[in-house]
């Protein structure tokens, strides 16, 4: 396997998939980590389920089965998050049910239904890439935007470490800061990763 075939473009920064929660929810590390983890896990499970569906269901029912699976996955995760930490569930708000129509998951469903669907490893790398962006973006935004680092935890209260006495860039904690941070990350991705890809081609 050469480097070029091993390269999987980041779904968030190159494909612009699943950006909606990244803009808003990543203002806090704990919510950003939780939601990107749920989304990435959902993408992996959707791809795994697609393999099963392709071999066990007629083509027309396959898509329906995958959407039903996704809806129940989001419902189950929502109930688990609510039971584990009502604070985290409240912080995720509408973005938790919205995972059911997340672009990354729907993309995996569409890809999984195709005859020439990519290998499971590609989905795994893609989901890990999304998770990495979510983690680094929420870390960047909370530390610089709020001066704290909130750690996800069970129960009614989340621990937060104070990193700076005052937030250095409060703008980053707003949706506008979310767009700008994503722009910065996408730009870095274009600058750093596009160069080797071109030289290899």
């Amino acid at each position, binding site marked *: 396997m050469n480097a070029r075939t091993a390269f999987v473009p980041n779904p968030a*920064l190159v494909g612009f998939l699943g950006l*909606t929660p990244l803009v808003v929810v990543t203002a806090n590390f704990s919510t950003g980590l939780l939601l990107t983890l749920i989304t990435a896990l959902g993408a992996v499970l959707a791809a795994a389920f697609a393999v099963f569906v392709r071999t066990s269901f007629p083509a027309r029912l396959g898509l329906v089965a995958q959407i039903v699976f996704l809806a129940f996955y989001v419902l189950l995760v*929502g109930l688990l998050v609510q039971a584990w930490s009502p604070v985290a569930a409240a912080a995720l708000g509408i973005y938790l049910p919205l995972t059911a129509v997340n672009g990354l998951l729907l993309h995996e469903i569409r890809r999984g239904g195709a005859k020439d669907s990519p290998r499971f490893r590609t989905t795994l790398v893609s989901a890990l890439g999304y998770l990495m962006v979510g983690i680094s973006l929420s870390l960047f935004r909370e530390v610089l935007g709020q001066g704290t680092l909130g750690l996800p935890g069970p129960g009614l209260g989340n621990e937060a470490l104070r990193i700076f006495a005052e937030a250095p860039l409060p703008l980053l904690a707003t949706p506008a800061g979310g*767009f700008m941070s994503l722009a910065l990350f996408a730009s870095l991705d274009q600058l750093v990763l596009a160069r080797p890809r071109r030289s290899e081609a």
Partner: protein
Amino acid sequence: MSWLGIVLVSVFSANALLVYGFGIAEASRPREALAPLSLLALGAATLASSALLWLARTFLLEPLGLVRFEVLVFVLVIAPLLKYLSQAASRDSATPIGSFLARVDEAMMSSLVFGIALVATRSGFSLGEALLASVASSLGFGGAFAILGGIRRRLELSGLPRGFREGPALLLSAGLLAMVFSGIDARLLAGLVK
């Protein structure tokens, strides 16, 4: 809140694209501007979804204490029902109505439509107010999308550095636009039109 207040808040200080981030993936991809027909289809899709979700929430989920199941209601009942109806009615996609219904069908399974419906139904509005809020949110999305489209066309001619071309430039523009929109205070807007 008055009806005009709901419209102003939904278009500006609670803009679907710039405050909630709904549909940002579509706005970030280089493509043609949102056609008026697509905007109408989006409005119709959000209106129908919001109405059905509001009815399901008010008369079924809340009385039974099953509000958490609204994701199942949307993904397994509302979206497939509206998709089926629009597909059944749009057999001839060559006609304007067929093309409109085909776009409604395309828009149904998106975070934009579900997100607007969720916001409208969770705001404690009456049915009429929820429908007005969802239509105004679609208009606000269309407005922000059109402004970003105009910025995109300008940026394409401006010789940006390689790292900022296309997506990153659009996201940065969306960030600046979101700053402008967030400066419009929701309480001020609601208070202006009591």
